[in-house]
């Protein structure tokens, strides 16, 4: 039986086509080809093209004029750039609150009472809605004349505060709106994570007298590490991608005080302020490098994970 098989396959391999003989090494590339093509054309090449564009003065239509690093030199002295950068950092830090907040809600909802599934879905609700609608909803929520926020604080004799019209509050107001769906996302990650927590470890810890915060910190949170990692990744990416809310709620105002780099870039390159593609690209390059720092960390963690298996 086995000799027959060997003989047959040897006979076959001599006569098989080149494709047949190399099938296993060629197939993956054939399967990858369309995805790689699309991804190269629309994602990878454009990154390098943006680096290139940032060295030119260009209105997007006419001829480009090479100006070296002038765009970056201008950026160095641009107060609007620093406002945006500062706001980006505030976004990054405060957005991370979504992680503990999500964990808190997940712990609150991790019970088995009647209707809890519906409660979980409804708590998750804000994440499903587009940021445009979240932005509109919160714009009305903050409205100084009839908004719910001012109506409520009016009952205790405070306000009115024009959150979105006040340069000191505006960024925080928008971040609060962004935290709403982001917290929902982190919550669902933690609910899934909590589901997989090892009950034996909890029992063992209970026998050792652990409870409450100690149990949470030393027994539960370490087991939630994969969920925390994903929550961290999506929150950082979400914070640096913040654009929709700013565009809808304030359009960067008042006096450009709520801009972040992503919004400022768009404003410079594609809005009525002028079509300065080169300058916009330079801002995008800075934003890209901030993100690259995190991307490197994410990939490094994934790499360690891959090798660990």
């Amino acid at each position, binding site marked *: 039986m086995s000799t027959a098989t060997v003989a047959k396959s040897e006979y076959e391999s001599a006569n098989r086509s080149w494709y047949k003989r190399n099938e296993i090494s060629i197939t993956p590339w054939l399967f990858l080809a369309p995805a790689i093509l*699309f991804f190269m054309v629309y994602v990878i090449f454009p990154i390098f093209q943006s680096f290139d564009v940032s060295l030119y003065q260009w209105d997007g239509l006419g001829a480009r004029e090479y100006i070296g690093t002038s765009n970056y030199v201008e950026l160095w002295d641009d107060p609007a750039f620093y406002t945006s950068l500062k706001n980006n950092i505030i976004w990054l830090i405060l957005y991370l609150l979504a992680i503990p907040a999500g964990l808190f809600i997940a712990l609150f909802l991790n019970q088995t009472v009647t209707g809890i599934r519906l409660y979980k879905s409804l708590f998750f609700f804000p994440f499903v809605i*587009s940021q*445009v609608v979240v932005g509109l909803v919160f714009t009305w929520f903050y409205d100084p004349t009839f908004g719910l926020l001012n109506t409520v604080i009016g009952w205790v004799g405070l306000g009115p505060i024009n959150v979105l019209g006040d340069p000191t509050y505006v960024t925080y107001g928008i971040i609060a709106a962004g935290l709403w769906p982001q917290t929902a996302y982190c919550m669902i990650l933690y609910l899934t994570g909590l589901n997989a927590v090892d009950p034996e470890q909890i029992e063992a810890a209970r026998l050792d007298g652990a409870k409450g915060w100690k149990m949470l910190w030393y027994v539960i949170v370490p087991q939630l590490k994969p969920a925390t990692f994903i929550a961290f990744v999506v929150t950082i990416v979400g914070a640096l991608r913040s654009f929709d809310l700013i565009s809808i709620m304030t359009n960067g105002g008042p006096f450009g005080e709520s801009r972040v780099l992503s919004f400022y870039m768009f404003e410079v390159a594609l809005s009525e302020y002028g079509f300065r593609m080169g300058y916009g690209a330079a801002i995008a390059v800075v934003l*890209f490098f901030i993100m690259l720092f995190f991307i490197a960390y994410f990939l490094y963690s994934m790499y360690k994970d891959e090798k660990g298996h």
Partner: protein
Amino acid sequence: MFPTPIQKSPRSWQLTYQSLLPVALIFWLLPLIAVALFSVKPEGDFSGGNYWSLPSSFGGWDNYGKVFFQSDMPRYLMNSLLITIPTAIGAVALSCMAGFALGIYKFKLNLWVFFIFVAGNFVPFQILMVPVRDLTLDMGLYNTKTGLVLFHIAFQTGFCTLFMRNFIKGLPFALIEAARVEGIAEWKIFVYIVLPLMKPAIAALSVLIFTFIWNDYFWAIVLTQGVDSQPVTAGITSFNAQFRAAYHLMSAGAIVAALPPVAMFFLMQKHFIAGLTLGAVK
């Protein structure tokens, strides 16, 4: 289970918890409840300054009727569908294939290719904006749904490939080996063995991509303008300009724009959550 199951705690805390749940939910969804309330209030309530009273009469039919029959909203919704569905199909198809290649085959560049997809998926949109807009203009696809769809497919392929590859890695490899011993062609292994097993992943990704693309705003305003091709997220700003200060109509419009992904979420909840939380558990 953590925290301690409520059934094991004192009766008083059980009752507190049961009553706390709806209160917390109402508080959490307050901004949305307000908008839903606005959307069924008749116009008169607003001109009379009764923003927060209960609706004096049910104005829902009137408000939603206006959204559907006296505005461009239906066209924007249609555009959204025509952008979202082809994108979901395209991105899922490309990533099924790429995920198969990266999840099954061992070759030198495997991890590199995979990491390029993953890294690309995280880049800020702005670094792509100028070249992608330029490319779309050059191809004559600016302000078309096709232009937007092509970009979305390409960009979503990053996330989808990450997802599919990890899913396929979790499949029993013995199946593939058994098929190879039988001498089955590699593409047949994909079509007849791997693809049927990927159904849950395909379902999860389709609903996720549907939601992501439906909710996209940035690329909609970068690559399209006007009612012929803009999706509803971008359209709603012109809708709001048309009905400035008519809060009952703007609220109804916002709810209509938000509804399809919400419906998708409730119908496909299991898949949706499975997709979002992939990797949250080891």
